[in-house]
């Protein structure tokens, strides 16, 4: 893929001088089988911003946000999280992971731990907080996502929506600078999507920096500061949600929107 085919240059955020939390420059990634999954993707995410990443399946959007906490390595380009370059240094990667929360499509709660233990695990073992402090903060977070009364249940005893809310609380417990959401509602029954989106909406309202891979158009319209379309490993379009959904610049975006709207 040549330079000219690459995505439009990054549009700086409206607020002048806003600090970039994620700076991804020309990121290239090949899978082990040689498939070129990310073809020179660049994107900045600024503090307090909510970026929604959309795109057809196989477009590399999940892979892209998974490079932000080094769950996926990349081969060329650079990604800096809050000024720390993600490269091969294990210490840097661990430092980045402490500051980046991630919510998965399949929740990935720890089934052998109670809800409260799920949330306090990382603060106790990584942040080295005393148990009492970790539990107090965890209970506050569980309260915030509306499941404080289920703190002593195991994940296997809860509905998908509840599990996903626990997963959000678990990530928030580390007090991350940025939250990544990898299709957080795709594995949920329709009636549970709303409870999870509500939590995410509140989170955005509180000023959390968020990058969400999602197909929830309503959520993107309402909450996102910016919508990004990826296709074939390339960032096709970056736009404001209003512009993106009503008047997309790129032909590829129009085709995509005509399929999902």
């Amino acid at each position, binding site marked *: 893929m040549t330079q000219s085919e690459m995505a439009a240059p990054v549009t700086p955020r409206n607020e002048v001088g806003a600090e970039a939390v994620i700076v991804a420059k020309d990121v290239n990634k090949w899978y082990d089988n040689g498939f070129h999954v990310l073809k020179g993707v660049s994107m900045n995410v600024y503090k307090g911003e909510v970026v929604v990443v959309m795109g057809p399946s196989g477009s590399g959007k999940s892979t892209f946000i998974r490079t932000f*906490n080094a*769950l996926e390595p990349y081969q060329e380009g650079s990604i800096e999280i809050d000024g720390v370059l993600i490269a091969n*240094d*294990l*210490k840097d990667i*661990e430092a980045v*992971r*402490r500051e*980046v*929360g*991630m919510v*998965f499509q*399949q929740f*990935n*709660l*720890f*089934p*052998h731990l109670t809800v409260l233990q799920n949330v306090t*695990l*990382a603060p106790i*073992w*990584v942040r080295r907080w005393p148990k009492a402090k970790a539990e107090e903060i965890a209970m506050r977070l569980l309260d915030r996502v509306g499941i404080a009364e289920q703190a002593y249940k*195991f*994940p*296997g*005893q809860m509905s998908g929506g509840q599990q996903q809310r626990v*997963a959000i609380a*678990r*990530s928030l417990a*580390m007090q991350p600078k940025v939250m990544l959401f990898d299709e957080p509602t795709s594995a949920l029954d329709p009636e549970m999507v709303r409870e999870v989106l509500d939590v995410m909406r509140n989170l955005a309202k509180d000023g959390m920096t968020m990058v969400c891979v999602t197909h929830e158009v309503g959520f993107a319209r309402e909450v996102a500061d910016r919508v990004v379309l990826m296709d074939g490993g390339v960032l096709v379009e970056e736009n404001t949600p209003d512009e993106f959904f009503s008047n997309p610049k790129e032909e590829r975006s129009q085709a995509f929107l005509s399929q999902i709207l």
Partner: protein
Amino acid sequence: MTTTSSRPIERGAPRVQKTGPIAWSQKHLFNSAFNSVLTVVLIGILAYAAYSTLVWGFTQAPWGVVTENFAQFMVGLYPSAFYWRAWAIFAMVLALAGLSWGILARNQKKIFTVPVLIGFGVAALLLIALPMTRPYLAYSLGSLALLAGGAVAGQSLGRQYPKAATLISGGWFISYFAVLYLLGGNTFTNSLFYLVVIQAGLGILVGWQLAARVGVPAVTKWLGKLGLLAIGFVLGYYVLGNLLYPILGGLPYTVFLGIAAALGIALGLLLVVVFTAPETVHSVGKVVLFLSGFAIVFGLLGWLPQLLGLDFGLTTVRTNSWGGLTLTLFLAISGIALCFPAGVLLALGRRSKLPLIRAFSVTYIELVRGVPLISILFMGQVLIPLFLPEGMRPDPVVRAIIGLTIFSSAYLAENVRAGLQAVPQGQSEAAQSLGLNKPLTMSLIVLPQALKTAIPAIVGQFISLFQDTTLLGIVGLLELLGMTRNLLASPKYLGDFAPAYVFIGAIYWVFCYGMSYGSRRVEEALNTDLR
């Protein structure tokens, strides 16, 4: 039964037709002419078999071989003057078992439910009624009382102290060494066996704590490097030398000193490399810290009794007089306790990204799994004494435990690996995305789930290890089967195979079923889904 759609579905348990024994047997045993005939014939055969067994058991079987040698079945050729030591072990284990039982059942209202009481009653009746236990009635009933008393005490302990469960596991850990001491007596001066085990245990603890708590600083100044070299040399020369002395002591002293010095230099260089290298070898540094902590404690403890000229405590009973069920249990428990961590490490090694470690694990596992256990045991019992001169051979019991461990750990590694593979990738991804490093992810998230899945296979391996101890009877140890064969070889009991084998078969069954039952209970307790 039909339910019309207009009627609301009734909640509660599904309806079951109540059946009496007659209705049940009509439905299941006599539901056709052919089945009725089959039932009658089979009941006849079973009744005849049961009758013959009972007749044999009560009138014909020469139980004398069991009743007259009960003590030998239990403790082998252990000197009868020291039987009290075996009783002390038995009492200690039962008391601990009672305490653990009570602690585990701390949230139950009543421990002594009707089935438990019936169990106790049957056990007491058997102890009183069976001729072989009658001479030891006071001891055995007392031990039973200890079990019950321990349970009561354990329950109230468990309710009062939340840490009681941790304490009791520590109690079991210590009890192992107490058993060793009681069985072997004062082996400080006579054998390094007991000492070596304690040294190793304490060394592991100290090394672990060191590795967990102390950071690995990077040493860059040349003076620091020289210091590291010196520390490594002293550690290697004295500590590793001391460690290896029981094995290499037979060599000429100068040769031995040369080997110790070489070890010292090697360790010194290793220290320098690890502590001056960049941060990427952080985990290697932890390993070195662990090893040096281990080595210091191991070495110091090895010297201490020699320095103090210690000679106290119980009379030594050498392992060649250990035997019977006691030896069987000692071998099995030691083997299980050692092969479990070894198996887990091998399983992790086989999945490691480091090629050297992976190659070692694969080679070990495939090599050991390709060799029958009996050949490993023969190698330990027969070949090692042939190759090594007197004084350098490890104790036969130690050799047996090592053989069992080598063998079982390879199989266990595969069981654990299967469990590891059953843990979804998302689990470690979630843990890593929270900032947990690899060791924490493995020990807090992946391993607990993997081991839970692997419990049935792991316990199966434990059971077969327990049964494999019988092979040691063939290579000359007087464990339960070896002791039985020994007794049956005497002219007095010529041909009395059946009662003896029925008796030890029952003993093996009780222990194996116990393990199996225990594993099912553990599985139930760990099942966190839809509870």
